[in-house]
Structure formats: C-alpha cells, structure tokens
C-alpha cells in the first residue's frame, strides 16, 4: 500500500500506534510495520513531521529522554488525542462498511 492511499488516514493510524503507551518515532514505525504485516510502504522520514503536526494539534505530547547517550523524543496520546482516535475509528468503520457494501452489492448496515 502506497503513502498516497493512506492520505487522510495517517493521523488515525499514528494515534492508534500510541494507544498502547508512549513510543518514540522508530517504535511508532515498527509498530505500524508489525500491525500491518509490512504492507504500509511509507518513507520513514515522513512519519516524524506527521508526529510533530499531531503534537501541534494537541493530540499527542512529546518529551525528551536520553537513551544510550542519544537524545530521544517520545510521544504519548493526550486526552484530546484519545477522543480524536475514538472519533476517527468510528468514522473509518462507518466509511469502510459503506464502501464494502457498495462494492459487494449488498445493503449498507445501519450506522451504530
């Protein structure tokens, strides 16, 4: 799956990787890779600006630590981020159910 296909959903995917607890950039990428079985083909370097954007939006918060003599920035979900993730997840489930129904020619399930 290419990066363009993920546009519009990247924020939700990144927020979901932080749902289990704080992670640094590389751990976010590894988590994405594992959860998608390596099917997301994203240039790793573009994940970091996306994390900064989410931080500016107040959905995640970043803090520095020192690991092995190297400074590392770790991100965690804020309360607003948790709410946003819940909303985005519900929107996606509704959207995917609607499109699936249309593609498969069956009635669309009622929204929850």
């Amino acid at each position: 799956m290419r990066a363009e296909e993920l546009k519009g959903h990247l924020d939700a995917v990144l927020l979901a990787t932080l749902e289990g607890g704080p992670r640094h950039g590389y751990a976010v990428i590894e988590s994405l890779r594992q959860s998608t079985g390596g099917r997301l083909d994203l240039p790793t370097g573009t994940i970091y600006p996306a994390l900064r954007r989410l931080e500016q939006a107040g959905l995640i918060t970043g803090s520095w630590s020192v690991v092995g003599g190297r400074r590392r920035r770790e991100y965690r979900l804020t309360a607003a981020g948790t709410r946003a993730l819940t909303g985005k997840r519900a929107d996606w489930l509704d959207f995917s159910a609607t499109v699936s129904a249309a593609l498969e020619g069956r009635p669309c399930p009622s929204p929850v």
Partner: protein
Amino acid sequence: MSEPRLISSYLAVLAADLPASIVEELADGLAETHRSYLRQGLAPDLAAESAVAEFGEPQAIVAEFARVNPSRRAARRLLGIGPVVGACWAVALITDRAGAWPVPLAARILVGVALITIIALLAAAALTTRYRLAARTGIAGCIGIATLDAVLITGVTLSSAPMTWVMAGAMTASTARIAFAARSLVPALAR
C-alpha cells in the same frame, strides 16, 4: 560504534535546513533503523544504504517539516484574513475621506511599500518547501503586519480626524490581527 559516513552525510543535508532538535530526533530514528538492518545480518555499509533509502529523500523530509512549520501556518492564516482587514480599512479610509488628510506623500509610499513587502514575506513563508526560509519569512511577516497595524492605529488615534464607527471597526480588526500575530509568534520563536 561510529556513524557510517553515508548516514553522517544524510544528516548533514537535513541539518542544513532543519533545527537541531528535529535533526536529533531523525538521527535517533536513523540510527535505530541502521541497527535494525545490522541485526538482520547486513554489512554496515549496506545497512546504512538501506536505512537511508527507507527514510526517503532528505528534501522530501524537509518539505514535510516545512509544511508543519508554525510560521508557515501563521503566514497562511494571515494571508487568509488579510483581505478582510484590508477591506475594513479601505471602507473606513474612503468613508472618512482619508485622501484629504495631511499625511506626507513619503509616509503614504512607505506604508504601501511596507504592505507589499509584508505580503511577499508571508507568501514566501506560505509556499516555500524550505524549513528555515518558512520560519524566517513567517516570523518577519508576523512582526511586520503587527507593526503596520500598530502604526495605522496609532496614526489614526493621533490624527485630528473624527472617530467613526467604520474607523473603529477597522482599528478593531487590526487589533485582533496584532493579537493573532503575537500569539502565532510564540510557537514560531520557540523552534
């Protein structure tokens, strides 16, 4: 273990246009990616090549960071509200027949040149894919527009022209823009 030259060069390209804190974060991620390839059994040089390839073109990373630069976002918003504030002033100055005010021609030209320069700075910040240029022009544009608004408000306040509702509206719009520009400067200067 010393950093492979390819990774050092890659980080140097990023450091030329990104703040140190961002480069530090990217360096940590790149080092982890490199280590991951080493663990998979790749030779150090090949691991470095793979890590750099996985990260993507440095120019693309810089452009992505430029897009999320607070100065750039502030510049875009200021360009968006600019016509509204400008229209308020246009209506006020026309209604109050400001053309007849005793303002020296040099001062009028100076305000016009300043306005064009500020718009150019904000446009550069809003459109560039270079991080530092976005930051510098955005900050300069914010300071410039706030200063110009302050000059206009002060000039009208000190003048003997009667205060009308439309002029008060234009001054309120400018005051709101000064507050917005000042608030935008805090995250922009923090970088």
